[in-house]
């Protein structure tokens, strides 16, 4: 549903450059996987795209609008169309699973409470956690929290979904379910997705295109098949590991 274009994106903290001129393009309904070593800047990239942090240079265009110069108020309007699945879930720990998942639609009154309750039940079933509505985040395992975080992002029906390592820390069976869910979400709603992941089998299962990031630089972008045949040593090291 949405289109994303990142051009010449740099981000620095104090005097350290974390992202160095990142260029990316994600077409409508496409799933782009971003892979890279720990500390290569993947989360930072997603946080820039979500408008949570301001890059020092470059542009981030969502559906033709550059979000970099936007104020928080303007960003709030754009963020209605962007979902971010946090690496560590970031659930509201004073709220139940039900309140967490239904948070967006309830706050913005886009649905009736009854419709939200129904949506929550079906989303929780989708992520493999039926019947957990009344639980608190503190009562969930890391993997369960992650799935609630995913359900919460889906509840807002965003056009652009950013997943920060959606399958890390999950068992292979659940990881497979989540992979299927990411593809299904795209197929059913035409959602554009950026999936950050280290999980090579998962990446090759779901991605239309893959970008390899290393120390804040995109070193190669291509289809999964192209990356598998890459001659770049950094990509090889990752794919063959």
């Amino acid at each position, binding site marked *: 549903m949405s289109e994303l274009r990142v051009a010449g994106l740099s981000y620095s903290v*104090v005097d350290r450059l974390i992202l160095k001129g990142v260029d990316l393009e994600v077409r409508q309904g496409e799933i782009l996987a971003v892979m890279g070593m720990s500390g290569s800047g993947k989360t930072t990239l997603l946080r820039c795209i979500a408008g949570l942090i301001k890059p020092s240079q470059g542009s981030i265009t969502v559906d033709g609008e550059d979000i970099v110069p936007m104020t*928080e*108020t303007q960003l709030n309007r754009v963020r209605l169309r962007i979902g*971010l699945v946090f690496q*560590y879930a*970031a*659930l509201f720990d004073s709220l139940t699973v039900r309140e967490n998942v239904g948070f967006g639609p309830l*706050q913005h009154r886009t649905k009736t409470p009854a419709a939200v309750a129904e949506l929550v039940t079906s989303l929780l079933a989708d992520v493999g956690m039926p019947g957990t509505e009344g639980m608190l985040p503190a009562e969930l395992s890391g993997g369960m929290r992650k799935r609630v975080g995913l359900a919460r992002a889906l509840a807002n029906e965003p056009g652009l979904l950013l997943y920060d390592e959606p399958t890390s820390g999950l068992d292979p069976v659940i990881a497979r379910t989540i992979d299927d869910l990411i593809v299904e979400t795209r197929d059913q709603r035409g959602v554009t997705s950026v999936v950050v992941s280290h999980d090579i089998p998962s990446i090759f299962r779901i991605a239309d295109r893959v970008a390899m990031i290393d120390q804040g630089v995109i070193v190669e972008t291509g289809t999964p098949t192209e990356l598998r045949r890459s001659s770049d040593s950094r990509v090889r090291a990752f794919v063959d590991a």
Partner: protein
Amino acid sequence: MASNDAGGEGAAARRAPEGPGWLVVAATFVGETSILAGQAAWLAMRGKFSLRETIRQMAAMGVDSIPIIMLTCAATGSVLAFYVADVLVRFGGAGFVGGMIALSFLLELGPVLAGVMVAARSGAAVAAEIGSMVVTEQIDALRMMSVPPVRYLVAPRVLACILMMPICGLFADMAGIFGGLVMASTHGVTQSAFMESIRTMATHADLMKGLAKTLWFGLTIAVVACHQGLNTQRGATGVGAATTRSVVLCVVFIFVSDFFLAQVLSGASASMR
């Protein structure tokens, strides 16, 4: 905390300005807290905040604080009576004991002690809660949901604290005077003499002056606690540091602003006469 920076990214930007370090820090602090207070007030005026959350916060702040406020004030009141009654009775001023204690509490001790206890209890809780939400990215999650943290978290807490502080102050006054009354009665001042003295020396205006102070203290405590919470640094020690700073700043501001409020309020009542 600028309006477009509701998360924890303010710290990096704050290192930028040059000049005498403390002056920059102080100016930034005053600027950011004023903006935060302004935003909260603007949202509150337009009714753009959760009434349910406000009531929940009022309950939490009241239930948290009123028992300890009453305990500390009753103790302080009786200690005050212990010293004052002795001296005044010896010099033939038994008729002033009740009034002195009542005035001390209505004008000064009630509001200030209530403020300090609320800062220590509820202010710390607010800073710790919001701080841990920063560290665990819950504030970022709010922003991703297009729900401004100032609207969801700050406005209800500021409103609740402003509304609860006068009630806390009232309980502080009552407990303090009661403590004084009990102690004075064991030092040769009868209950009826104590009450008569209050009636002749203290007025409703004294009560109102004290309660007016508590409104300001409530605003200060909530805004400072929210500001410290929102500016929590990532890492394990961040929340603890934010909580401590919040309590220290609140207590210092209560005492310092109390000095100025006392001047302003007595000036105001003098011009009314």
